[in-house]
């Protein structure tokens, strides 16, 4: 056996030397010839993931040409030697560097040509996929003759282009429908969803799966890639020798489906249905899905030449749309907000205590225990605690139903949770997050109780949506350890975490809070202290305006359709119900006190009357709408309309068109956001955009309030606000920073 091993290492040595002498310049793509199989390995040395950068493409083309020209090679394996990433997509910078649609179209056409050559390769190519295989990476893989994927949790396949306002521009819209059938292909390309290996195998997206390996004579990651390569090499040989057929015998269902699809009117019906669904979901605000349908249709109805042309041209057009720029901006922003700009904290938080087992508290506990953080969930009553623990259990159990975790993982996550009514064990906590009722005196009481039992290094984080942190910290013996962590409900679904620092909060405390949030999987913005911080402060004036609009006699459903029509995922009336009418009233009153008449608009008394009647929104079953368990349809709460009647205002016709109402709502939001930047509450426009989109549902197609000002034009926005200002006064007075931008069009929040 030792002899064999020595021989093996010798052959490895010689190939390495061969590579070195022949291709000294290549850094991203390399290959080794194993018998009659060429194994092409990709690894971008300068990045965490592989992308189809200019360099990668150039080296790949060179290598492919050599492999095709080498008569000793019968088949090819394409594999990444970077752990966790096959190819994560095209290089976005390459697209962003283009200034015209034609340039981008050219990029697309180059990609199409390269993959066409791959598709027509006389030597079968096996894509051996471990890790992310997305966008251009997926298009590369589906151009290959055969695909093998590992079952790793990191292995995902998908076309996320649509989420960036683009389309798969290198043959994806043409190959996928033929490979998967229209319904699956549309689902994949239009939703951009990531597909896990087992699903990919079922759909026919990959041919074969390879298990991940555990410890052996090498690290599990390294050996898994090696194993994938061994299996892929065998498959490549089998393909070259025609022992493995390239086309699979189709099943009966597939044959029936193909037959049905062969009728043009059936296909037409599918296009129509999909088109309608897209229109309903996007309100026509997102051009990419519509263009995708167009490309698929062109390919199937008019043939490949028309299809590929439509794909490249539409790709070019889409890249130039403000929607795509907004979505790409959000993508970059999200990446930025997933980093800890405050550095590594001195002490990692391993033991967490959450006070209050309500919706928020239990939600925070849930996203902590499944990341391996030992979490104490404390409440004051057994009923409250039981409800909270049930919420955590249900949250995790629902994941087992979706098969994203196993029941065993659920159980072991839950073992990180300790539910209790006392302060037992707080002396070992590294961080306490309180999520008790939003009342300053209660928060003070809790803070004092907690500080009496926690160790000196322990951080006290407060989850509040509006109370200034410095007011809460006023009774603290160690204000440098006090910080705000504003989670959004439902915590396990909402991605944003707003962290609020006071001028006394230490940098290490901030770093630690950010680290915990990142571990919990959050996108994080760090903002300065003040009433309503950033997010609540932007939302409050918009909701005040929404109340006024309701008082002016606009029906809640109409109000919702106006806001969703502008791109908000949730309508303003529904949002008020979700947030809670009582919370909205509370916040409106608090912020009204802090900011004065600028935060006026709708009558707070209306909200209070609603609360008095028990209409607190979804949680109480009634708000603007009536909510019935199990019923998706919601009726307008007529009793709420009756209350509205007594607060009725007469609308001013000059500023009450649908569009006016939309801009009245949005401009107040945006102006307040810009003011937050002006006042230094926000550190930068990127966090402002991310906070607004991920926390409040600001239209993603607009990219956030700051990108909206950039693309809409500060001058045009100011002009609109001035018109509203004439009627409503200072609520619509543009802030100085916005005026500066209006005066000088060269000033932009985003470069």
């Amino acid at each position, binding site marked *: 056996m030792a002899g064999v091993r020595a021989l093996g290492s010798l052959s490895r040595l010689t190939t390495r030397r061969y590579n070195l002498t022949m291709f000294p310049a290549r850094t991203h793509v390399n290959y080794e010839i194993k018998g009659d199989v060429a194994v092409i390995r990709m690894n971008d040395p300068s990045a965490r993931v592989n992308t189809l950068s200019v360099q990668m493409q150039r080296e790949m083309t060179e290598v492919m040409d050599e492999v095709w020209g080498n008569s000793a090679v019968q088949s090819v394996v394409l594999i990444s030697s970077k752990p966790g990433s096959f190819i994560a997509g095209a290089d976005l910078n390459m697209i962003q560097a283009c200034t015209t649609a034609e340039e981008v179209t050219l990029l697309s056409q180059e990609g199409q040509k390269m993959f066409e050559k791959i598709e027509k390769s006389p030597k079968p190519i096996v894509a051996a996929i471990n890790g992310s295989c997305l966008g251009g990476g997926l298009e590369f893989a589906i151009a290959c003759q055969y695909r093998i994927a590992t079952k790793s949790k990191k292995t995902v396949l998908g076309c996320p282009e649509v989420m960036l306002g683009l389309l798969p521009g290198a043959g994806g819209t043409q190959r996928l429908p033929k490979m998967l059938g229209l319904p699956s292909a549309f689902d994949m390309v239009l939703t951009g969803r990531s597909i896990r290996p087992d699903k990919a195998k079922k759909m026919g997206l990959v041919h074969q799966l390879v298990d991940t*390996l555990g410890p*052996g004579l090498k690290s*599990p990651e390294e050996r898994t890639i090696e194993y994938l390569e061994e299996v892929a090499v065998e498959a490549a040989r089998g393909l070259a020798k025609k022992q493995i057929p390239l086309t699979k015998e189709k099943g009966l269902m597939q044959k029936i489906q193909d037959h049905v699809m062969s009728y043009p009117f059936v296909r037409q019906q599918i296009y129509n249905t999909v088109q309608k669904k897209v229109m309903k979901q996007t309100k026509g605000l997102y051009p990419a899905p519509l263009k995708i349908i167009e490309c698929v249709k062109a390919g199937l109805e008019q043939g490949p030449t028309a299809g590929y042309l439509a794909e490249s041209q539409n790709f070019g057009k889409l890249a130039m749309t403000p929607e795509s720029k907004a979505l790409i901006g959000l993508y970059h922003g999200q990446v930025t907000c997933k980093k800890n700009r405050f550095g590594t904290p001195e002490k990692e938080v391993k033991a967490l205590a959450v006070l209050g087992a309500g919706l928020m508290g239990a939600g925070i506990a849930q996203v902590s225990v499944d990341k391996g953080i030992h979490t104490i969930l404390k409440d004051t009553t057994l009923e409250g605690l039981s409800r909270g623990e049930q919420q955590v259990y249900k949250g995790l159990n629902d994941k087992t139903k979706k098969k994203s975790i196993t029941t065993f993982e659920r159980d072991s996550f839950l073992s990180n949770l300790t539910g209790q009514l006392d302060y037992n064990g707080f002396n070992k906590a590294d961080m306490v997050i309180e999520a008790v009722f939003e009342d300053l005196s209660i928060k003070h009481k809790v803070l004092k109780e907690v500080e009496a039992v926690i160790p000196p290094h322990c951080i006290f984080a407060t989850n509040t949506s509006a109370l200034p942190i410095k007011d809460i910290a006023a009774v603290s013996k160690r204000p440098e350890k006090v910080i705000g962590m504003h989670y959004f409900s439902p915590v396990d679904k909402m991605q944003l975490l707003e962290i609020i620092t006071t001028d006394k909060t230490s940098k290490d405390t901030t770093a630690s809070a950010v680290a915990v949030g990142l571990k919990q999987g959050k996108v994080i913005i760090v903002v300065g202290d003040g009433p309503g911080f950033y997010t609540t402060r932007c939302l409050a004036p918009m909701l005040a305006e929404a109340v006024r609009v309701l008082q002016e006699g606009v029906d809640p459903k109409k109000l919702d359709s106006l806001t969703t029509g502008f791109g908000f995922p949730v309508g303003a009336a529904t949002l008020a119900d979700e947030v809670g009418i009582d919370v909205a009233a509370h916040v409106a009153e608090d912020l009204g006190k802090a900011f004065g008449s600028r935060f006026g608009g709708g009558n707070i008394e209306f909200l209070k009357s609603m609360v008095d009647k028990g209409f607190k929104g979804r949680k109480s079953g009634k708000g603007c709408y009536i909510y019935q368990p199990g019923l998706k349809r919601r009726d307008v709460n007529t009793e709420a309309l009756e209350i509205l009647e007594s607060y009725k205002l007469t609308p001013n016709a000059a500023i009450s068109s649908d569009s006016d109402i939309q801009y009245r709502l949005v401009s107040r939001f945006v102006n307040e956001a810009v003011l937050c930047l002006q006042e230094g509450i926000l550190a930068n426009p990127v966090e402002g955009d991310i906070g607004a989109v991920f926390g409040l549902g600001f239209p993603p197609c607009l990219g956030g309030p700051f990108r909206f000002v950039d693309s809409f034009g500060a001058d045009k926005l100011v002009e609109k606000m001035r018109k509203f200002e004439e009627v409503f006064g200072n609520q619509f007075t543009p802030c100085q920073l916005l005026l500066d931008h209006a005066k000088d069009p060269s000033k932009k929040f985003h470069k």
Partner: protein
Amino acid sequence: IKKTLAKPGVKNIVLVDGVRTPFLQSGTIYADLMPHDLARAALQGLLNRTGLPKDAVDYIVYGTVIQEVKTSNVAREAALGAGFSDKTPAHTVTMACISSNQAMTTAVGLIAAGQCDAVVAGGVEFMSDVPIRHSRRMRKTMLSLNKAKTLGARLSLLGSIRLAHLAPELPAVAEFSTAETMGHSADRLAAAFGVSRLEQDEFALRSHTLAKKAQDSGLLSDVISFKVPGKDIVSKDNGIRPSTMEQMAKLKPAFIKPHGTVTAANSSFLTDGASAVLIMSEEKALAMGYKPKAYLRDFVYVSQDPKDQLLLGPTYATPKVLEKSGLTLNDIDVFEFHEAFAGQIMANLKAMESDWFAQTYMGRKTKVGAPPMEKFNSWGGSLSLGHPFAATGCRLVTTVAHRLQKEGGQYGLVAACAAGGQGHAMVIEAYPQ
């Protein structure tokens, strides 16, 4: 001769003798029996072999894995039927494939603690019949039916039964925690250690060849004859089938398709069988006039990740038990390792031979080393003799004792892996001839 492993203040505990029923492929001659029938046969065989007065036994411990619900304490049912005194208590233990090892070490514990002097330990597995259950939904409905008071309530419960509820639940040789079948895990383990299909087939062939040789030359003296009711007398294992490499190469992978390496031919097969041993304190054995076969010395149990290291028990247990006994691998004359899969054995051998593995995963400075093959399972193993889960442990210990007598060595080592990511090893010392 090497030093004895006796320790001051620790009682010498001996294996007086051990027997087993022939190990048969499930669904063959034993098919109509029940588990306690097999266990009873082993117990009676032990009594016959040792001439032990039934009332001399203080306690009986038996291992079993797949439990027959009717005889969940199979030790007691078998003992009663075998004619042991109804005053002899018996209990059943379960620890997957090391269940009878657990039964034996329980016996050792009872003796060492001074509570017993003579204990019978054993294990039984009966794969010809396994408990197949109704689905949970169906069980719930049936249990509710018991409680339903009115005809209407009963009818509405009956009406709630759907076709899908009638689908039965079959037991699987799968980990509960990971839902992965053991064969699948073995295939991944073999791949992780780069064990080739060829190596596995070669090892499996070796096992069958050695077993055949041992059987033919009458070395498997622990096997007793058993008159199966309604059938002939059985006196030989029936799974030993030395094949050829060509034949074995033809088989398709059984678990990971199409590229896996674990096949039916290089895995242990489903087996029916039972084993039993008589364990005593040395004084008691000598007082009763027995000539013990071996001393049972140090033993360890280990456990590790049930997903990726499910079957690496021997790798973890071996260095630990050797250290305990103050021995090195070179001191061991006879190795008996449980062969769950050829790939699993090869993976363990490679892991034991790897400094990197020892340092990275076991927190040890160096590797323990792989046993020399000429001392390893030289009378066949679970792959060829068969593997009735809970009966294998006693077979390993008895075989070590017999091999030490036959081959003239002094120390033997038993090691085994088990579901749940657990493992066991025991050092056995030959009794002076």
